[in-house]
């Protein structure tokens, strides 16, 4: 008898507790910044594509749902000619983000990707590329890589010496 009353009392007290359930979709959940949701391709501080088409995300993907083709512009800067993620296969494990050497591919706290037609879950580069640096502002891969691109010749990157003068005999 006592236990029944105690149970009812405890249940009654819950009416005054803070609610964990939120009224989604009217109310949006507050997700941490590192939540692994929709995948985006970000841009570097110069608003150029960060992705250099190195294929590491595709290799890391356990469900093989990323495919791309690298190409380069006339100055030698690499970028993906196409970049496709099949979100109907994606398990949002975040390995691609971990593998990315340029912080290009990032998982963001957006999970509202429901579709009635499965084909619509295939995202191409224009669906993935955003006009933002995402979670890692300030990083510019080409500043630290040795490759020369438009606007950065050899020796102009961070932590680089002037190109060697092969004809010089000076010590």
């Amino acid at each position, binding site marked *: 008898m006592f236990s029944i009353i105690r149970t009812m009392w405890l249940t009654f007290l819950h009416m005054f507790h803070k609610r964990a359930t939120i009224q989604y979709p009217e109310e949006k959940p507050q997700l941490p910044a590192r939540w692994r949701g929709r995948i985006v391709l970000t841009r570097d501080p110069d608003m150029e594509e960060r992705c250099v088409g190195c294929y590491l995300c595709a*290799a890391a*993907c356990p469900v*093989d*749902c990323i495919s791309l083709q690298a190409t380069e512009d006339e100055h030698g800067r690499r970028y993906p000619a196409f970049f496709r993620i099949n979100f*109907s296969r994606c398990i949002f494990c975040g390995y691609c983000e971990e593998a990315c050497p340029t912080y290009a591919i990032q998982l963001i706290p957006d999970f509202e990707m429901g579709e009635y037609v*499965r084909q619509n879950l*295939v995202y191409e580069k224009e669906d993935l590329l955003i006009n933002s640096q995402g979670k890692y502002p300030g990083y510019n891969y080409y500043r630290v890589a*040795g*490759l020369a691109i438009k606007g950065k010749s*050899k020796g102009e990157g961070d932590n680089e010496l002037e190109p060697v003068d092969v004809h010089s005999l000076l010590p």
Partner: protein
Amino acid sequence: MVLFIDNKPYEVPAGKNLLETCLSLGLDVPYFCWHPAMGSVGACRQCAVKVYKDENDQKGRLVMSCMEPVVNNQRISVEDHEAKEFRGHVIEWLMTNHPHDCAVCDEGGSCHLQDMTVMTGHNYRNFRYKKRTYTNQYLGPFLNHEMNRCIQCYRCVRFYKDYAGGKDLDVFASKNNVYFGRAEDGVLENEFSGNLAEVCPTGVFTDKTLKQHYTRKWDLTMAPSVCQHCSIGCNTIAGERYGSLRMIANRYNGDVNGYFLCDRGRYGYEFVNAADRIRNPHIQQRETDRGTLLSTLSGLLNKPGVIGIGSPRASLQSNFVLKALVGEHNFYHGVSDTEHDLAELAVKILREGPVRTPSTKEVEEADAVFILGEDITNTAPILALAVRQSVQQQPAALAEKANIPLWNDAAVKGIVQDKKGPLFIATLTTTKLDELATATYRATPECIARLGFAVAHALDNTSPAVTDLSENMVVLAGQIAQALRAAKKPVIISGAGCESDAVMKAAANVAYALNKENSNTGLVYTMLECNSIGLAMMGGHRLHAAFNAVVNGHADTVIVLENDLYRHGRKSDVEAFLKACRNIIVLDHSVHATTQQADVVIPAGTFAESDGIVVNNEGRAQRFFQVYESKDMVCESWRWLLDIGAAANHARLSHWKNFEEITHAIATDEPLLKRIDAVTPPSQFRVAGQRIPREPHRYSGRTSMHANINVSEPKPPEDADSPLSYTMEGYRGMPPSSMIPFFWSPGWNSVQSVNKYQQEIGGELKGGDPGIRLLEPVADKTIKYFEGIPEAFKPLEDHLLIMPMHHIFGSDELSARSPSVAQRIPKPYILLSMDDAVALSLLENYMLTFYIGRYEYSLPVKVSNALPNGVAAVPYGLPEIPYTELPEWATTRSPKYLHTLTPTYTPKHLNT
């Protein structure tokens, strides 16, 4: 010999260095500057191991394992803490200036530097100072240069200069600033420059054609293939991604190509991806579907009067099925009559003669070489690379005498200096190998043959003697005979390149005469196409007989298999022939003059889309595997022919269903090709119940690459013709040596993983080198010397004997279609001797108009000091130079009977 490594005893062969020995035993010792084909120089200090005095020695001393010979009962340690730390430091120093580039580097994923860095455990740059940078150079259409990545191992110059004889790559500057490149921007001229992409342990030199459609090694669907661009048949790995062929890499075969490929073979693949490939069947130039095609053809083929023309660049299977379809009497070899005779002669000599034809590897080991008439740098480049090594054989004896092991490259080079073994070259004009030659002789094929016969006579009195020899020639013949007689393993090289049977017979006589005294004599014939010998071993009639059959009305329907007849017959003959044919059915993959005149065009597969067997110049039957299935209607010629045969209710063809059954039929039907069903394991072959995957286990994008078309993944194609699968699933261990789709081993992602596939380093692959030799001489044959010594060449007034001049880039039909190779094709020209040019009052680049038959040609002149008088040479097989059956006499005076409507030919770019 017993070697203790980390206290474990191993039985090892003597004469090797510790590094090779450890690698042969399967141990992982990191290295950079050592290369199995080029030996050790001990420059990079990466392969350090500990050597102990005896079992009580606790301290030991660090040595470079590549510079230390194996000693019996020696005790060494690879795992020793100090040795590991030393190697870790070395790689850290090598990496101080290495850029943060892997993501944008083409080498990434197949990079020896990556592998070695991971192997030694270096992962953090402690060096706090700035990185050194270099500017890059333009090196031509084949290689990309990114000098920042260099770790100064010197492998590139050692390969390019010392091994391949290149002149235009070198090391510049000094100390920490050394620079590997050319003196100035420009095309790397050596024929083997593409190997730098594989020789360089990192990404300084990378494949420029791969860069244009870049794919990581792990993303390629790869299959073992055989190069189709000359008669040597180098083994290659062909890789595909997204339906296009992406790259050709070397597939080690100890007997054939070893570690290297020529640039024609490496970069000639792009014709597969050409935009104008034939991808759908056409009837009367209109695209059609499969059903219409098969019903049309079955109607045509059920009538009498059908003949088939085979091809020296199509597989045995395709040629054989065509032969079966049209019947033995109606099957014609699609090669010019001269080539037909020369290939048959080669088969006859190698099969019935007493002399064995050596593999390329054995040519490398020859200690005296005599080349008759063949410019092998241009007709069989890998053979030329082997000859380059062979001249080192005799001087290397000096090193052995001085107790220097042959792998100790720098020391051997030091003692050898510029001494060279005997190499004699008799060709029409200068060749690239001349720089190594003991003596050269420039003459027409007739005179070269006379020299050959004279050498044979000098070696053996019973061989026919040459009359009216000049004194110089007698002396030269004597010198050659003496050098050949003194050699332990002499090799005679000749071939179809100068289109002369006399030269080939003379070479045979020399080899026969030598073989009497020395059974190690070798005789090599190079041919013009990848399957010339295979076709010759199959039997069939001459091309001219086909022309006659149609022109005389015995036949009216012709099936042409992967062949541009204009490359094999005189233009007027081919035109008359094609005009006389009522139905021309052509199976081919690329558009050419013959397909343009065809009534029915059937889309055949290239080597990448086909399974097949080709026989190289050595008589080695080798299989190439389909790399990928085309999405269009493209498939193997033999499969099309089977389908056509089945549609026409052909009795034999309807029974054959796949590659296997055709191959068995060839083995039963063709007496000379009896063993070809043993070239690879049968298609039912499995390892542990599993197929061998064409894709590496890291293959990516399977659920996404076709998702733009349909989100549901298609079922991967199943291979009914081979034990290979088109997926990444299957047996992950080592496949049989004839079916290695790619080289990979844990921790060894680069091409250097081939070490793990070899019986011993630089030796044969585990399970034997692939391919089956079909031509072996019968022992104890009585020698029958060839007679028929030609008269010496005499120039004719107002006439020039036009000879073909082979070019590595341009003379081969298919590779010339590759855009990168096309950039290296020479402009059309006619080469004249100095005297002839003076007599015709012509200077370099002046136009010479000459007439062959009723055709007029106009070509810019090049002048040579080496060319004999009365002879001219034009580049062979160039699309701009119409084919006539060379050699042919041309007149420099306008003939009276010249047809007024004769098409005058002037190359387009010369009009400006």
